[in-house]
């Protein structure tokens, strides 16, 4: 038997119900909990900028060390200084 849209009439007999009286209390509790655990946008920006600065400074420091390591033999040659090595014969 094919159902027509009229067979949805039982849905018309569904009563509208009130929300439970304790609902607002629970909602306020959840809001208070979420505001305590939430990190403020300002704090998030501070952490983010600090992390970027930290990475940038470390990158610059590593690059500088790398450059110094490469230029040491050239500098030594220019100054007629032989680098001391225990393994040199």
């Amino acid at each position, binding site marked *: *038997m*094919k*159902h027509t849209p009229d067979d949805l009439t039982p849905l018309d007999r569904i009563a509208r*119900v*009130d*929300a*439970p009286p304790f*609902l607002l209390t629970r909602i306020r509790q959840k*809001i208070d909990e*979420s505001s305590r655990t939430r990190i403020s946008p300002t704090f998030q920006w501070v952490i983010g900028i600090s992390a970027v600065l930290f990475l940038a400074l470390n990158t610059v420091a590593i690059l500088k060390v790398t450059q110094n390591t490469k230029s040491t033999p050239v500098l030594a040659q220019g100054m007629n200084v032989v680098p001391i090595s225990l393994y040199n014969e």
Partner: protein
Amino acid sequence: MTTGTTEKFDDIYHAHKVLVYNLALSYVLVAEDAQEIAQDVFVSVYQGLKSFKEQSSITTWVYRITINKSLDFIKAKQRKKRFAFLTSLFHDDSNELKYDKPTFDHPGVQLENREAVERIFKCIHQLPDNQKTALLLSKIEDKTQVEIAEIMNLSAKAVESLIQRAKQNLSTKLSKSEG
């Protein structure tokens, strides 16, 4: 909560609590689940109050949040059910079923009407999300196609087509469920 925000939120809550609860009930059919969704909806409303730009009415906005939260809840519940097969279904110390929750507990449905309503809703919930939503807003919330279009951010023509397809699919499913 600041005083101004609290007052505004309280007004919104009292104006929309019945709408949210009943719409959530239409989706999840269990009072306890609808309460959980309603709580999540109003927490989202509170958190979104400051950034709400009034591009739509507050009621439309609340409808959208309720629909999204309800659909997310249903998906999460389906995922949990799938995982339940991989874990023990019983509590450790007893033979009490862990996942034996009611699937139909709608306080607005009279006992004599329950079987018919339950069968219809079970078929409605097999429809795709957009057809399900359009049908529930039309049949349960008594919204016009224009109102549904605004809530779902569609054209009125698209809503008309959705409802038509929903009714056709529902009719087929109801016929199959009868046997």
